């Protein structure tokens, strides 16, 4: 490949990384808001949050992308910049999976901890912030690590609506070179390296957080299992 084509690929990497970071930020916010809402006292809050997860986990990420990109402008009269359309679709979809992780980790905290908070007359918000989340968050990290790899793979989907991400620039280079094996091998390798760095980073984060509450991290004996499972994969963590 010539230098110009490599520059094109690098620009694609940059767009993919932007999508990944922004999508992960949105997905994290959605996960925590929806996940905490699913443990709420009022049934209506739990119901709405549950409906959200079922809808977004039930449809495919690609259909969400199409919907945000093609239907939103027609339906509501405003169009999103492709980057934001991609971030919105990815963040909302993977946030729904993340919500299940958050819910699972929260319900896995020993009930006595919550009761202790009630006995000390903490407000619900204080219990969440000071007791439940500090213990639940480290447990969320391994499944979140899998989810962020899923998100990375999901970013490739936005190339279908013409965003200049890594997969898209790859297909441009393929058209220029007429050489499929070479370019797609490079693409797969680049994605793999990013995924590898992500899982390593998450493992580091897990160790930090668990050390913070005096726990040793679980040793990864088997390779990670995909968390973004079907609509029935309740429980998370």
């Amino acid at each position, binding site marked *: 490949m010539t230098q110009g084509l490599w520059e094109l690929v690098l620009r694609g990497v940059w767009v993919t990384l932007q999508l990944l970071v922004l999508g992960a930020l949105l997905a994290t916010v959605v996960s925590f808001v929806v996940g905490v809402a699913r443990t709420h006292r009022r049934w209506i809050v739990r119901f709405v949050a549950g409906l959200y997860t*079922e*809808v977004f*986990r*039930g*449809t*495919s*990420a*690609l*259909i*969400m992308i*199409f*919907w945000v990109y*093609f*239907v939103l402008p*027609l*339906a*509501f009269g405003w169009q999103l910049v492709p980057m934001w359309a991609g971030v919105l679709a990815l963040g909302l979809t993977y946030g729904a999976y993340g919500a299940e992780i958050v819910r699972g980790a929260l319900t896995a905290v020993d009930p006595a901890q919550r009761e202790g908070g009630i006995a000390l007359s903490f407000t619900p918000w204080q219990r969440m912030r000071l007791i439940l989340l500090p213990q639940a968050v480290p447990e969320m990290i391994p499944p979140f690590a899998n989810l962020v*790899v899923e998100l*990375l*793979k*999901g*970013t*490739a*989907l936005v*190339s*279908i609506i013409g965003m200049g991400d890594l*997969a898209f620039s*790859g*297909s441009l280079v*393929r058209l220029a070179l007429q050489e*499929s*094996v070479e370019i*797609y*091998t490079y*693409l*797969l390798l680049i*994605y*793999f390296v990013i*995924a*590898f760095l992500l*899982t390593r980073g998450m493992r580091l984060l897990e160790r930090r957080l668990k050390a913070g509450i005096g726990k040793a991290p679980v040793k990864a004996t*088997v*390779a990670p*299992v*995909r968390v*973004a*499972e*079907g*609509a*029935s*994969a309740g429980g998370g963590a």
Partner: protein
Amino acid sequence: MNWDWNAVVDFLPHFRKGLLVTLQALALGSVVSFALGLVWALLVRTPTRWVSWPVGVATEFVRNTPLLVQLFFLFYVLPAWGLTFSALTTGVFAIGLHYSTYTMQVYRAGIEAVPVGQWEAATALNLPVRRTWTVVILPQAVRRVVPALGNYVISMLKDTPILMVITVPEMLSEARLYAQETFRFTEPLTVIGVAFILISYLASLLLRTLERRLVR
């Protein structure tokens, strides 16, 4: 919001065609991934390192890279190597291969969950290796893994729209085709979105019943 019910009715025949292709791809992809996954699981367990290690690395690689790029890879590379398949076949193989790296872990967990005593009993009865697997270990392992495999079937369902990019006429392609002809995007895209929610919801209900039957 400009919703037109006539467009929905008009889209239904296309929708039916796409639905059939989607379900076909899903069924075949599941079969491929279940079969290949078992092969990988058994290969990774072999004591010979030069077999288990490459299989482990290769499946890890496939699992951590986008299905979309793998699909393009197969679609453009296989013909260059003189192997021409229909788009649907290529797509089924790509999905099956991608998900086999997940089902492999399911089988592995299932095999590891078979109590050691079962292995010892097989040894005590002097069963040959193949019969140990086919008669003792696998029947017990497979029963445990059915619910987890079902979850991946639902995931696969949600990945079938990707086949659009290699011209497989599944639901999303049909919707897009219809949208390009009529300039109505809202109805076809919403119809197939709802269809996906319904199918995956029904599948998960079915799975929960199956789970209750099997795991007790």
